[in-house]
């Protein structure tokens, strides 16, 4: 068994956990000051515009699901969807979510239902607001094209575990001249979305969405922990390179 890597991993998890909990308990002493990411500002504006216009918001949650290493991406996407759905649930046209994995479909339905409940618009929730569009990446892309083209959508939020097929979705959304916020964890898909989406999020910006959209204190604190860990990794990389140069 790989004991050393496992123990190192466990140490990292415990360290992050302590840091997260410690900063969380410090409450208001931790002040937020992040660099500006225009995509999040425009996202809030697009949600507001959709609610005022009575047009729809479409969340495309990808096809990675929750039973593989990309689960966290799906969770981050669900968190973003929940936040936006709470603001837009009482709109004339309720938000819809499409996914390419059944477990994600069920979770999206559950989150949309909860968002409607908190928005006081439980009666406007429809069970088919959370939909399964297809179970392979390209069948999913083909299934999502229909709501993008046919359902009076003004904001397409393509956030989740995508591959390069995300290019087809962002192209369809761009043809409809709708707002596109796109984020994923896959590097090839990020390159495709950078070229095709109006507001792409690069790298780990997807995981920072909760902090930027002020969905809760835990998101803010976890972004701080991410920054601390990033600096530690930078120090370790530089230290390792220096040691190698010194022949140690």
């Amino acid at each position: 068994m790989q004991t050393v890597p496992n123990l190192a991993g466990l140490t990292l998890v415990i360290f992050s956990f302590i840091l997260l909990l410690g900063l969380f308990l410090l409450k208001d002493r931790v002040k937020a000051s992040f660099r500006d990411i225009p995509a999040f500002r425009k996202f809030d504006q697009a949600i507001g515009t959709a609610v005022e216009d009575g047009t729809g918001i479409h969340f495309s949650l990808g096809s990675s699901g929750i039973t593989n290493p990309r689960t966290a991406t799906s969770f981050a996407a669900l968190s973003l969807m929940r936040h936006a759905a709470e603001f837009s649930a009482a709109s004339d046209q309720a938000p819809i979510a499409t996914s390419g994995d059944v477990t994600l479909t069920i979770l999206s339905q559950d989150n949309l239902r909860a968002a409607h409940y908190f928005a006081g618009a439980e009666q406007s929730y429809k069970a088919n607001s959370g939909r399964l569009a297809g179970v392979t990446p390209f069948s999913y892309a083909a299934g999502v094209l229909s709501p993008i083209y046919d359902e009076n959508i003004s904001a397409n939020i393509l956030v989740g575990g995508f591959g390069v097929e995300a290019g087809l979705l962002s192209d369809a959304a761009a043809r409809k001249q709708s707002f596109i916020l796109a984020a994923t964890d896959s590097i090839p898909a990020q390159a495709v979305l950078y070229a095709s989406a109006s507001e792409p999020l690069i790298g780990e910006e997807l995981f920072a969405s909760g902090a930027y959209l002020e969905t809760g204190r835990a998101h803010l604190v976890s972004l701080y922990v991410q920054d601390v860990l990033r600096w530690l990794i930078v120090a370790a990389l530089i230290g390792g390179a220096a040691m190698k140069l010194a022949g140690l």
Partner: protein
Amino acid sequence: MTRFLSPLIAIVVGLLVLLGYFLPNNELLAGLRTTFTQWAVILAAAALLVGILNLLTVHIKKISAKEKGSFYSLLLIISLLITLSVGLFAGKDSSAMQFAFTAFILPVESSLLAIMVVTLIYAGIRLLRYRNDLMAFVFLITVLVIMLGTAPLPFVELPLVGSVIRPFIISVFSTSGARGILLGVALGTLLTGLRVLIGADRPYGGK
């Protein structure tokens, strides 16, 4: 009751699976991890039935409301029922299922991949309309150089592009950039998981 029960189950099971992963020599934790993972696989398989019902409901409603594109919904339902029947009665390894895969699914998905090429070229042209900045220019020039260095060009061979510049961009800039992004994604993944484990994030919904 479920308001407290769901997070409790998620946190306890999550912690046990995590510990089972990092401490594989502990038989109790490793055994629990395997059991919980197997349960998750069974639940995911059962969820597939719910997913199929959801797919049918959405498209039946579309047909009954005579919405735009309802013909395609009808086609989808007929194809689904035929494939389901063939799979149930002839078996998933039967020649009929293989035919369905090689004659329909594979060509359609390959065609969509081919459409992607056109879509991406168009997106590349449109990029400068979205973002008329330095990074967009760098992105487009890099794409152009990599393509010129990769694609077989008729009658002409560009000096240095395929032999020096393209490998240099891929092995230095591209690899280091990708590693940086992957490290960020890994940290984001770790913290998202921890938020779920402390119950601060509840992707399983609930009121």
